[in-house]
């Protein structure tokens, strides 16, 4: 008999990207700081994971960034993220998992279209 937990049941299908084919840009908060750009690892209807390059300090869990830009091919999504998970990945990189909150219905529609396209494309 298989037991399915709540956590497992809510795990959405994640669409993985080849290295560099999708990016997330987190603008700097002040002019003397640097924006962060990172390679998106995967994307789902509710969240995103990305990897920070070595030497980039990882954000704290539950931090909210109100303005990020995700680019997947020609598709641009804007919204906020809430950090949910920060783990060490290979090569001293830090992998970050976050919930994604599209800024508007327009970006929600784009996300849906993107997910649909990825679903069709396998």
């Amino acid at each position, binding site marked *: 008999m298989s037991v399915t937990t709540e956590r497992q049941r809510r795990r959405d299908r994640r669409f993985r990207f080849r290295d560099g084919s999708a990016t997330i*840009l987190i603008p700097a908060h002040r002019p003397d700081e640097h924006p962060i750009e990172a390679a998106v690892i995967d994307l789902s209807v509710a969240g995103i994971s990305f990897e920070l390059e070595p030497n980039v300090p990882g954000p704290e869990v539950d931090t909210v960034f109100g303005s990020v830009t995700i680019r997947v091919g020609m598709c641009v999504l804007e919204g906020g993220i809430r950090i949910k998970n920060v783990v060490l990945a290979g090569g001293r990189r830090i992998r970050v998992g976050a919930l994604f909150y599209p800024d508007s219905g327009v970006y929600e529609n784009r996300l849906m279209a993107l997910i649909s396209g990825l679903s069709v494309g396998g």
Partner: protein
Amino acid sequence: MFIRCAKCHGSVWLDLARGSLDALLTCEGCGQAYKPQRWSSDAAEEFRQNAHIFAIENGIDMPGAFSVLLGLMTLGQVLDVGAAPAPPSAPRSASMPEDVGDTTGSPAVKIDYDPAFLPAVEAGSLTARQALERGDRESFAQRLIDRHKMSEELAYLVADNRMSLLAAIRSQEGREELRASTIDVRMGTAIPTAQLRRALAWMLFVAVILGAGAGWLYLGQDRDAPLDNVTVQTDNKGRIVQVEGPDPRSVLEAYCAARRTREPLVPLGVMPATMGNLRVRVGVLRDPLNKDRLLAISIRRDRDASRWFAGDGRAELHALRAPDAATDAFTGLAEAPKDTP
């Protein structure tokens, strides 16, 4: 919007503004049926904004927030603390519960929301439904203060829906020392602060004007001048033809510092140049004498040496008009110090 299936917690796409022509939507994961009702686009957008705040506040995803506010799931179920709901026998209506109140914001309707919200409801910034969903106004504001290190003033503006949560967070981001030291990415930058960068730029500018320092400045003929692991190469007329550094940011800063302009160029940041290509970046900068538009240089990474270059080493390296995406990304950033409260 994607909603969370009440039965299997999978995602189901639902377009509130369009409805679905009275057809049933079914969850692909479990077959659970939903009967969407058509909403006006304004009502759908208002609902979406409400769900946005609800999701961020409770640390849940957007599909979960939609389902909670649609009455399909409880917050406890979304947060994993409640039991899974029993499979409903009839199609569930993906509409707001009818007994919650109206959506017009009229206080005359019998709604049991916190009276502290009444001024906001009467002012039209908050609907009665939103007030009800937010519960106790003071508690709601306090949660904002605790979770987002938000000022009390901002928290109550958000509570009354006079300012969006994201706008409040963004305004906080501009003025506070980045909570989480999160993303203080200096990455070994040679010049640690904006003040130092500006000072260096001015020193270079003055030195060029005075004709001094020709021995070490990177403006001599065909001279490669090291500056903390950054090299600026010029031609025999003193024009910059290539900048090389350990990272895109240092290349951008060195270019800005080395360019002979009346006012020092201001490096703003680096962003991807082309979709999906992390080897090429756009270094965005601002000319103080031309505030109407941003400029940019292309910076590429050497495959072998992991060094970053701008310019081909032959032609003069010009900063060109920045792409629209860069303008969108950095214009606000450049103005942030003046605008933030």
